[in-house]
């Protein structure tokens, strides 16, 4: 059980702001912090890690007080069992990929697991390379692997997958998910990716201007009142073409492109670049597994 109730003064894009985060996270939970740029997501992670000091409040993890302004307790980051993946990777420039991971290892067992982790993030061929010779995505994978070495109590991930292509992203999402279930490590993820959030997290905390405005399941958050047996899709309108006598609307929904026929009247309300909801009442779907 992690209990957080802290305040911190921030200078944001919209002027000064008194951020106040109150949050309880269950053991082993996978929680995603979701919110616009500058909302305070990174700041919250840093305060949990002990890298930044809240102005006031309390952080308690498994009954252990990590921070308490009233009692003047403030555990240093070293004493907090955390794994942190930084937005700028923060790899050690003089150490090779393997050395970066070995540095983190504390026990012989962890030392032995290093190569396994390197393989997990598919960097075996690069394990003796220095960080400066890696591509952006490769660096990010090293940072992720390094944070996992010590089996931390809480894994704090600041957009760890944002620089990855979708194949690698999906692979690492699966690994994250696996690690989470296998090790049962409580995980806090900052992500802007809806699919990622839905796929990985048990719960979502929506953050806006330094406040947690809502916590709920990711599905609840993203799906409008869903009706069973009904398809309702939100998509970007890519093109509207007139194909006598009807209009063909091309919609992008996620990774899928959908073409739908619309009447002249319907089409006149739509414009390219806008969004549309595609729904249907009479629908007889066929589901085919893929891959």
């Amino acid at each position, binding site marked *: 059980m992690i209990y957080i109730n802290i305040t911190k003064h921030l200078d944001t894009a919209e002027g000064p702001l008194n951020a106040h985060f109150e949050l309880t996270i269950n053991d082993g939970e996978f929680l995603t912090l979701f919110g616009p740029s500058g909302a305070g997501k990174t700041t919250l992670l840093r305060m949990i890690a002990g890298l930044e000091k809240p102005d006031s409040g309390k952080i308690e993890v498994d009954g252990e007080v990590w921070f308490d302004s009233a009692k003047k307790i403030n555990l240093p980051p070293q004493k907090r069992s955390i794994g942190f993946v930084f937005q700028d990777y923060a*790899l050690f*420039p003089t150490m090779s990929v393997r050395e970066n991971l070995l540095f983190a290892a504390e026990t012989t067992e962890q030392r032995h697991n290093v190569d396994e982790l390197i393989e997990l993030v598919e960097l075996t061929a690069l394990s003796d390379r220095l960080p400066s010779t890696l591509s952006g995505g490769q660096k990010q994978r090293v940072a992720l692997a390094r944070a996992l070495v010590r089996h931390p109590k809480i894994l704090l991930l600041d957009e760890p997958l944002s620089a990855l292509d979708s194949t690698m992203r999906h692979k690492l999402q699966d690994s994250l998910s696996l690690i989470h279930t296998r090790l049962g490590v409580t995980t806090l993820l900052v992500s802007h990716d809806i699919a990622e959030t839905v796929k990985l997290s048990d719960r979502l905390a929506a953050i806006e201007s330094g406040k947690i405005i809502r916590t709920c399941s990711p599905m609840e958050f993203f799906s409008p009142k869903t009706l069973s047996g009904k398809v309702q899709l939100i998509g970007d309108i890519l093109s509207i073409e007139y194909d006598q006598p009807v209009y063909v609307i091309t919609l992008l929904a996620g990774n899928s492109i959908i073409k739908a026929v619309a009447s002249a009247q319907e089409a006149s309300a739509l414009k390219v670049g806008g969004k549309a909801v595609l729904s249907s009442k009479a629908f007889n779907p066929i589901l085919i597994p893929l891959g």
Partner: protein
Amino acid sequence: MESEFLATMVLTFKLAAITTLILLLIGIPLAAFLVFSKMRFKSVIETIVSMPLVLPPSVLGFYLLLAFSPASAIGSFLNEHGIRLAFSFEGLVIGSVLFSLPFMVHPIQSALSQVHRSIFEASYTLGKSKLETMIRVILPSIRHGLISGIVLAFAHTVGEFGVILMIGGNIPGETRVASIAIYDEVESLNYAMAHQYALTLFAVTFAILLLVYTLNKKSLRGIQ
């Protein structure tokens, strides 16, 4: 003569090596303090570190001599404990350390201040203490600054003579280092011998520094 020449050279590089080592041990924490401390009067300490440079070396030596003198508080305290710093090798080490301190501290401080904060933080979140982070992560990555400090301190100690002349008293085998010997030879208009000393100093130091730079370049390949 030959053996005296050799003894002088050995003494010179021994002094430079010991001084540099001590300076490394003092300089790194001091530089770290100057970079990371949030103390209000840090600038004052920063300034004080540079001050030994401002006095002419022989004058600094004179003040040191006063401090070492049995008449002074420090000197008499040391004397009671059987330590005599004036005219001893230990005294030379203290003088050289004091005099070359800024050359060690400055480059390290400047390099440290450019290390990105998240590098420290990453190491802390991996459970490493400040000390371990410093030794295993930061120092290797500020190698340039360390090498600058080592080279400057080492070369400066080899060449220093004002302080050493004053507090050393030119005792062969104990405090007569090469810089003093050269100076003596020049004063005695013994130019040939002076050239020989100078050339040897030059050659040996050149070889040492060249080695340091070349090794450094090799091992730096690829970083950054």
